[in-house]
């Protein structure tokens, strides 16, 4: 009898747990549904859409997804980094210059060195913000000039090269032709850094700092240190993004791509609050894939490419608008 009620109650609580989980992750679940919907729609309008196109999608999305992860971490910690694009350009050209005409083994050293460089750059951004107490947006805007200038010092016109194994790392597929290597790289890289972080005290500090600096400070979180570490992690992911650019193009270009803008768009779409302290990593990554698919679909539909800029902007504004309308309704209710 008691055992039976226990089972019933535990079953109910399990349903409740799933319900709670779904409610907490409804934005991410919505994005998954949207992504599936877009994939189906893409297949519908372009029946030839298959494994090679999925591989291209993953390769194209990889640098943007890494930029989005970079931006997400710093925004969760309560900041914003407008130098993401410049840091990616700097790390990309550095890796391309160092790898040119060098042995395959040396490239491993280059990759590790560039990752350390990304961490250092991010830490410099963070340290300036913490020490000078100038708002994040001003510092990172100014530092975007500094890193872009440094990029030109390293390489003033497109060039450099990349090791063969490095280029091979993200092209093609693994196990099945439906699993692109670039996607696997993304999952592994993000998993290795983010999952341990999310479960650690440091991860908790990052969220705490972002949601309420003063409360975090009073609960014993070293706010300044957390912020610097968050920026350093952002730098690390920017470096990964820069390496992805080098790997996918086989060279470095000193002109920063539109990664800063795209990363901000992706995190907003991905459910990260610009006020800090809320959101995750999965949402922004899903958002990047959705935005890439939108672009593919527009090509399939033979929409004037100039309109795709308009549509990107409209999507960005529309999603934020929707979010704030929902929030307002919740407050009113």
């Amino acid at each position, binding site marked *: 009898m008691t055992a039976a009620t226990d089972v019933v109650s535990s079953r109910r609580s399990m349903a409740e747990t799933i319900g709670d989980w779904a409610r907490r992750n409804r934005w991410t679940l919505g994005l998954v549904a949207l992504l599936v919907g877009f994939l189906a729609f893409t297949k519908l309008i372009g029946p030839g859409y298959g494994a090679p196109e999925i591989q291209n999608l993953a390769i194209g999305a990889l640098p943007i997804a890494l930029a989005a992860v970079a931006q997400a971490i710093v925004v969760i910690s309560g900041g*914003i980094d407008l130098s993401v694009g410049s840091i990616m350009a700097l790390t990309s050209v550095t890796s391309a210059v160092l790898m040119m005409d060098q042995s395959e083994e040396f490239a491993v050293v280059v990759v590790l060195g560039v990752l350390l460089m990304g961490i250092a750059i991010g830490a410099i951004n963070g340290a*300036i913000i913490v020490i*000078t*107490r*100038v*708002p994040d*947006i*001003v*510092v990172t*805007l*100014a*530092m*975007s*000039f*500094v890193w*872009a*200038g*440094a*990029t*030109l*010092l390293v390489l*003033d016109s497109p060039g450099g090269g990349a090791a063969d194994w490095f280029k091979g790392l993200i092209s093609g597929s693994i196990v099945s032709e439906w699993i692109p290597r670039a996607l696997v790289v993304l999952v592994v890289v993000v998993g290795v850094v983010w999952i341990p972080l999310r479960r650690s005290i440091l991860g908790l500090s990052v969220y705490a700092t972002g949601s309420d*600096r*003063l409360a975090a*400070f009073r609960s014993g979180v070293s*706010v300044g240190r957390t912020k610097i570490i968050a920026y350093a992690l952002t730098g690390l992911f920017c470096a990964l993004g820069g390496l992805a650019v080098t790997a996918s193009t086989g060279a470095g270009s000193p002109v920063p791509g539109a990664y800063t*803008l795209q990363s*901000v*768009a992706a995190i*907003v779409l991905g459910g990260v609050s*610009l006020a800090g302290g809320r959101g995750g990593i999965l949402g922004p990554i899903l958002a990047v894939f959705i935005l890439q698919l939108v672009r593919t679909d527009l090509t399939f539909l033979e929409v*004037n490419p*100039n*309109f*795709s*800029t*308009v*549509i*990107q*902007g*409209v999507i*960005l*504004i529309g999603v*934020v*608008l929707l979010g*704030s*309308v929902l929030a*307002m309704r919740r407050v009113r209710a």
Partner: protein
Amino acid sequence: MSVSVGTGERNPSSTAEEWRRLFRDRPLIPLLGLLVVLVLVLQLARPGIVSPEWLGVTMRAAIPLAILAGCQTLAMLTGGIDLSVGAIASMAAFVMATLATDQGPIVAVAVGLAAAALAGAVNGVGVGIFKVHPLIMTLGMGLVILGLTSVYQLAMVQSPVDVPDAIEWLGSETTLTFLPNNLLVFIPVAALIIIGLRRSGYGRLLFAVGDNPIAARLSGARVWQVLVALYVISAVLAALAGFLVAGLVKTATIQLVEESLLPSVAAAVIGGTSIMGGRGGYAGTIVGALILTVLGTLLTVLDMPEAARQILFGIIIVAVAAAYTRVTGES
């Protein structure tokens, strides 16, 4: 926003504190000092460069930047930012230049201004009514406007891009060698902004909204109306700057003014306007725009490569902003 850990020593009688107070209350004085130092260094680097012609050229280049920085100053006073000014200015200038031949300059200018005001109104509705973060709203609108302008460019591919003579005269010529004609646009604009911020009720509302939007609302200010008006004003100012730039380079492209976007934010920050809202003014911004222009000339004269210019540019913005935060004691 942030935690102030230890407020630091407060000793009102010390001279350091008096200096600090002077800088805080009269930020124009150190800024003008910096400007003079830059001009002196320029004169030392290339003796004889500082002349009436140089003054005219420098002011002519600084004025469109100062107008765009005015957009940022107004937006930043309310705690916002307007990252769509580059796109709006380019769009207004391009629309004006394509319509000028067929419709006449007056209609062309009017249509350009109206299109800009419409874009500003969309920004204002998003920020004021739907409470979208200004950074996102204006960034997104920048994309939308750039895209729409390129579509418009395709539609208008038949009509010539021609900047009217009057606008070229305003944008590029100087009177008496040291008075650029674009002062005719700039002086009324600057006077309106400076006096408007100090004396008008709307000016005080901008400061109030930036200081504390909730307090402003509770004291009866209609915050959304203030913000809609703000972004419309900002867009119209941007359009004026766009016309002047088109007059200066004597042509118009869809990304004509885009490269002035980040310097416009920088000029406002250097001029002492806080991006967190509630503190700042336009006089400082004008000096900020002059400082950036002179600095650009100096770096060119010193034959600095583009890379070094950008790095120095970034470092100076951070340094000046850090000095302000130190002096004003806010964080």
